[in-house]
C-alpha cells in the first residue's frame, strides 16, 4: 500500500491514488489529493461538487448517478470535466475521498 505525502498530509492510498482509509478525509487531504489530478486549486465550484458527492455517498453508500450530480450541482458534464480532468467518477470521487469505482465505470 503506497504512502502518499503532500505538505503535512500523510495518507495510505491504493495504486490509483484513492484513499485506503476514507474516514481520515478532511479539507487538507482533499487539497493534497487534488494535486495528483492536475488541479492547482480548489475553488468554490470544486467544493460544491466535493460536498455533494460526500453527502450523497454518506446517505447512499456510493457516488450518485452522473446525471444527478450535474442536475443537483447545476454544472454541465463538461464543466465537471474542466474542474476534474479525469471526470466525475474518477477525479472528483478521488478528491472527495470516495472509493475507486469498480466494474465498467
Amino acid at each position, binding site marked *: 500500500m503506497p504512502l502518499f505525502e503532500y505538505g503535512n498530509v500523510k495518507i495510505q492510498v491504493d495504486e490509483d491514488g484513492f484513499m485506503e482509509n476514507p474516514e481520515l478525509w478532511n479539507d487538507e487531504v482533499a487539497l493534497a489529493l487534488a494535486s495528483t489530478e492536475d488541479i492547482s486549486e480548489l475553488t468554490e465550484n470544486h467544493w460544491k461538487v466535493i460536498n455533494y458527492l460526500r453527502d450523497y455517498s454518506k446517505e447512499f*453508500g*456510493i457516488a450518485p*448517478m452522473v*446525471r*444527478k450530480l450535474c*442536475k443537483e450541482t447545476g454544472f454541465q458534464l463538461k464543466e465537471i470535466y474542466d474542474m476534474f480532468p479525469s471526470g466525475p467518477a474518477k477525479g472528483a470521487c478521488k478528491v472527495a475521498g470516495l472509493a475507486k469505482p*469498480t*466494474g*465498467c465505470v
Partner: protein
Amino acid sequence: MQKKTEQLAQIPEMKYYVENEAKGDRVSQFLEIFASILKHSNYRMALEHYIKVSAKCGRCTSSCHVYKTTGDLKDIPCYRSELLLSIYRRYFSLEGSMFSRLFGGFELTEEHIDKMAYSFWNCTACRKCVLECPSGIDHGLLTHLARYIMAEMNLAPRALVISTREQLHGKTANTSGIPFIALKDSLEFLEEELLEITGQEIRFPIDLENAEYILFTPVSDFLMEADTLMGIAAVLHSAGISWTIGSKYYDAINYGLFYSDLVLARALRKMEEETRRLKAKKILIGECGHATRSASFLKTYWRGDDCPEMLNIMELTHDLLKEGRIKLDPSKISEKITYHDPCNIARQGWIVEQPREIIRALSNNFVEMTPNKTENYCCGGGGGTVSIDEIRKYRTLVSGKVKAEQIKKTGAHYVVAPCANCKKQFRELMEDNKVDGELVGLHDLILKAIVF
C-alpha cells in the same frame, strides 16, 4: 507485409495489477489446473483438433487491430494461441508426450507463464481473427481458456477479480458495488427526469411479480447511462409492456465470459434465482454485448425446467417498432449518426440489422464505419480490458487506435455504441485520440425521437 496504421513512437505499457499472485512452482500449478479443466469440460475436443490443423499461416494478421497498431509479431493471434497449444501438445496429447519422451523438446517454464500472463490480455477477445482463419481456429476461445487456467492460480487482473467478488459474494451483489437504496434513488430520479422530458409518467417497476420481462442491465448504467435507461423505460412504457427490475440482483455484467467458466456459471445462477423469485416470463438484457452473449449461456446452466427466452433490448425494441407498437419521429435528430457493432453480439451475425433499422427509423443521416457488422473492429476495450484502468493508454492508443481512426473517417456527431464496455472505452479513446463527436447508446437517441 500487412499495412500498419500510423506507428506509435512508444507502445504504452500493458501491465495490470494482480492480487495475491501465485508463488512457488507455478509450472506444476498451471499443469495441474489445466489437467483438471480438461477432465471436467469439453475443451479437449477443440484442442485436439486445433493442434492438428494449426498451420500458423498468419492469415489472422490481416484482421487484428492490436497487431495493426504495434506491428509486433507477438501480437499475431496464431502466435499467441500457440503459447497454449504448445503446452497442450506437449503435456496432454498422446503424440506430443511420446515425442518429447524420445526426443525432448518444449518444456513449460516460469518465463512462458509470464509471457502468457500478458499476451493473453493484449488480446481483446473480439474474435475478428476467427473469420480469417482457414483452419477454423477460435483464437478467442483459446484466450478465454488460457485466462481461465491462470485465474485459477490468481494470475488475473485485480480490477476484474474485485468486481466479480463483490458481485458473487458482496453485500451489494453487483460489479460496481451499488447498494439497493442508491439504485432506488437513481430510478426515482430518472422517473422525475422522464416526466420533465416527455411529459409522461414513466415508471421503473421494482419487484413486480409475473412480469413479462425482467430487465438485467450492466449495473454501471445506473451510474453512467441515464439516457440509455430512460430510453429503455420509455420504449417499454409506450408499448405497454409489463416489466420489472429485481431488488435482489440487478447486474447483467458477467466477467466470467472473459476469464472464468466458474464465474460465468455463478453469475448466471444469480440471474436465474432472481428470475425465478419474481416469476418473470422472459429475460431482457440491456445495452451490452458481453452481457447478452454471456446470458445466452443460461440455456447451458439453467436447472430443471425449460430456460425462459432471453433477448437483448435492441431485439425487443426492433420487434415493437415493426409491430407499430412504438413510433419514432425521424425529424427530431438532424446530426450525422454512426453505429459501432459490439463484437459479442455482432460477430456471429446475431444483432446486426436490428439496430440499423431502428436508426433509419429515427434519422435520415446515418453513415456506416468501415468495416462493419460481422467484420467490425473491436472498440479496443473488449474481453474485460476496459475495466482495467491502469492499462488505459494501452487500450486507447494501441488496441483502440483502429477504432478511433474509423470514427474520425465517418465525421459523425453521434457515435452509437450499445454496450457498457464499449461506452466506457469510447469515452476514453475519443478523449485520448482527440476524436470529435458524442458517444451515446441507441436508446439515448430513441428517447429523443420517440413519440407517445
